[in-house]
C-alpha cells in the first residue's frame, strides 16, 4: 500500500512539474498558472472551511487585501510589488482577527454571516476610496525593471512560482493534519461541544486556523496582482472570488489535502471554456451551473469527489469480498 502511495505522489509531482514542458503555448501555460493560483486560494480556504468546518463565504476580503497592498506599494513608492506581499498578509490576518474574535465564541452561522458582511463592507469602502483607485483599481509596473517586478511575458515563470507556493502550503497542511492542531480542528468540525469537554481550546484554534488561512489567501491575492498587474473591487473583492474558492475546495473534497487542487483542475478549464463559448453573457450561466454543482455537493456528497471515490471503492471492495466469500463458501460446502 505504501508503494502505491509513493508512486501516486511521484506521478503527481512529475505531472505538475512537467506540465508546461509538454503542453506548450500561451493558452495552456496561462491556464495552468491559473489552475495553480486558484488551487492556492482554495487550499488556503480549506484550512478553515474544510478542516475546521467554519464556512467562510467572504474569503475574497483576504484575497483582495493581498492583491491591493503590493500594487499600492508600487503606486506610492514605485517599489517592487514583492515588498507589499508581507503588508497584504498582515492586513489579511488583522481582518481575520477582527472577524474571528467576536464570532468564534458563537455558533458557526454568525461567523459565516460575518464573513459575507465584512467582505461586502470592505468592497464598498475600497470601491469608493480614491486612494485605492476607487472603482478603477490599481495597476502594477507595466514593464519589468528587473526580475523583482515579477513582470514576465510568458506564464511559465508564474506557473513555477505558484507551484512552489502551493507545494509549501500543502506541506504545511499535511504537517498540520498529522499534528495535534489537525486533530483538534477536525474534532471542532465534528462536534464542538464534545471537543470542549475534552479540553480543546475551541475558539483559539478556530482563530489560529483562520489566521493561517487568511495569510495564505492574501498571498494568493498578491500573486494574482503580480501576474495580472491589476486589481479592482470586482476582480479582487467580489463575492464571486469567494465563491470560486469555496466551490473548488468543496467539489474536490473539503477537508482533504488534494481536494482543492482537484477542484481547481476541473473548474478552471471548465470556466474558461464556458466563457469562450458563451462570451460575456456566459457569466450568468456559469454561475447558475456553479450553483447547481454546489447544491448537488451539499445534497448528495458534502465530502466532494474524493469522498465519493472512496465510498465507491469501499463498496466495490465489499462486493468483491462478498463474492470471494460466496465462492469460498461454495467450495467449503
Amino acid at each position, binding site marked *: 500500500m505504501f508503494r502505491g502511495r509513493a508512486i501516486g505522489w511521484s506521478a503527481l509531482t512529475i505531472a505538475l512539474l512537467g506540465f508546461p514542458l509538454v503542453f506548450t503555448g500561451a493558452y495552456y501555460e496561462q491556464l495552468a498558472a491559473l489552475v495553480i493560483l486558484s488551487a492556492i486560494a482554495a487550499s488556503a480556504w480549506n484550512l478553515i472551511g474544510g478542516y475546521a468546518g467554519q464556512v467562510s463565504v467572504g474569503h475574497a476580503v483576504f484575497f483582495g487585501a493581498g492583491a491591493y497592498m503590493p500594487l499600492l506599494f508600487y503606486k506610492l513608492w514605485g517599489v517592487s510589488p514583492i515588498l507589499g506581499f508581507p503588508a497584504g498578509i498582515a492586513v489579511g490576518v488583522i481582518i481575520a482577527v477582527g472577524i474571528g474574535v467576536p464570532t468564534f465564541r458563537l455558533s458557526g452561522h454568525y461567523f459565516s454571516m460575518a464573513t459575507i458582511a465584512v467582505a461586502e463592507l470592505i468592497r464598498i469602502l475600497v470601491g469608493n476610496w480614491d486612494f485605492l483607485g476607487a472603482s478603477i483599481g490599481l495597476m502594477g509596473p507595466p514593464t519589468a525593471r528587473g526580475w523583482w517586478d515579477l513582470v514576465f511575458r510568458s506564464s511559465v515563470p508564474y506557473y513555477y512560482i505558484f507551484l512552489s507556493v502551493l507545494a509549501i502550503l500543502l506541506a504545511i497542511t499535511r504537517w498540520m493534519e498529522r499534528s495535534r492542531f489537525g486533530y483538534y480542528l477536525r474534532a471542532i468540525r465534528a462536534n464542538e461541544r464534545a471537543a470542549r469537554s475534552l479540553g480543546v481550546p475551541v475558539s483559539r484554534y478556530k482563530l489560529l486556523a483562520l489566521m493561517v488561512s487568511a495569510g495564505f489567501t492574501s498571498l494568493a491575492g498578491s500573486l494574482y496582482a503580480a501576474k495580472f498587474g491589476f486589481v479592482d473591487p470586482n476582480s479582487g473583492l467580489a463575492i464571486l472570488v469567494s465563491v470560486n474558492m469555496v466551490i473548488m475546495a468543496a467539489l474536490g473534497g473539503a477537508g482533504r489535502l488534494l481536494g482543492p487542487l482537484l477542484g481547481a483542475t476541473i473548474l478552471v478549464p471548465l470556466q474558461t471554456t464556458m466563457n469562450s463559448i458563451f462570451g460575456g453573457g456566459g457569466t450568468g450561466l456559469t*454561475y447558475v451551473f456553479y450553483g447547481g454543482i454546489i447544491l448537488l455537493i451539499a445534497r448528495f456528497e458534502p465530502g466532494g469527489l474524493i469522498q465519493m471515490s472512496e465510498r465507491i471503492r469501499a463498496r466495490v471492495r465489499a462486493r468483491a469480498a462478498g463474492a470471494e466469500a460466496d465462492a469460498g463458501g461454495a467450495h467449503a460446502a
Partner: protein
Amino acid sequence: MILLQVIVGGLLIGAVYALFSSGLTLVWGMMNVINFAHGEFVMLGMYVAFWAFTLVGAGPLSFTALAAILLFILGIVVYMALIRHVIRGPMLAQILATFGLLLLLRYAAFWAFSANFVTLPEGLVGPGFNLGGILLSAPKLLAGIVALALTIGMHVLLTRTAVGSQILAVAEDRDAAMLMGIRPDRMQAIAWGLAGASAGIAGALIATFFPISPTVGESLALIAFVVVTLGGFGSVPGAMIAGLVIGLIESLSAYYFGPVYQDVFVYGLFVVVLWVRPHGLMGKA
C-alpha cells in the same frame, strides 16, 4: 421637517425589512439554518410583481398576493427537496446548500432578465401626498403599513393559532413536539413557506418604489442578517423592532453621509453587534 420626513421614511422601509427578516429568523430559530438565499426570495417577489404587471396589468393587490403564493410554494419546495436532507448533516453541507441556492437563483435571474434594472411605473399605487408638511410617497407608505400589519400578523399567527403553536413547539423542542403528535417535517415546511411568502410580499411591496434587478438580493440579504442578529436568533418580535431600527439608521445615515455609505453603516452596525451583544435584543441565548 426634512428630518421628520427622513425618520418616517426610515421607519416605513424598516417595517418592510422587518417583514422579510421575520421569515428568516423563524427558520433560523426553528432549524438552526440560515437561508443565504433569502435575499433572492425577495428579489423573485419583485420580479413576480413586475411581470404580473407587465404581462397582464395586475395591480398592486393582485401581484402582491401572487408573489405571496408563488414564494410560499417555492419555500416549501426548497425545504422538501433540499433543506430537509441537509439539516442533519455537517454544517458545511447546510451552508453550501443555501449558498448554492443563492447562486442558482441570482444568476438564473441574471440570465433570464439580464443585468439591467427595470421599474414599475411611478404612479402605480397613487400620488405622493403631504401630511402636515411631511412628503409621503404612496408606495412607501403602503409598503410600510402593509409590512407592519403582516409582521404583526405573523407574530399573532405564531403565538395564537393552532398551527402557529405547533410551529413554535417544533422550534422549541422537536422531539417533545413529535411525542405530542405534531409532525415536525410538516411544520418546518410550513415555516419555510411562510418565510418565502413574507419575502415575496416584501419584494412585491418594494418593487413599487425601488428599481428591480437580479442583484438586489445581495444587499437585502445582508440587511436581513443584520436585522435577525440584532433582533435575536429566532425572535419575530425582535426582528420587528430591529427592522425598524435598521431602517431608521439607514435612512439617517443616507441623509447625513450620502446614500453610498448607508450600506457601510448597516454592515458596520452588524460587526458592532457581533462584538458587543451577539444574541441581539430579544434572542434566546
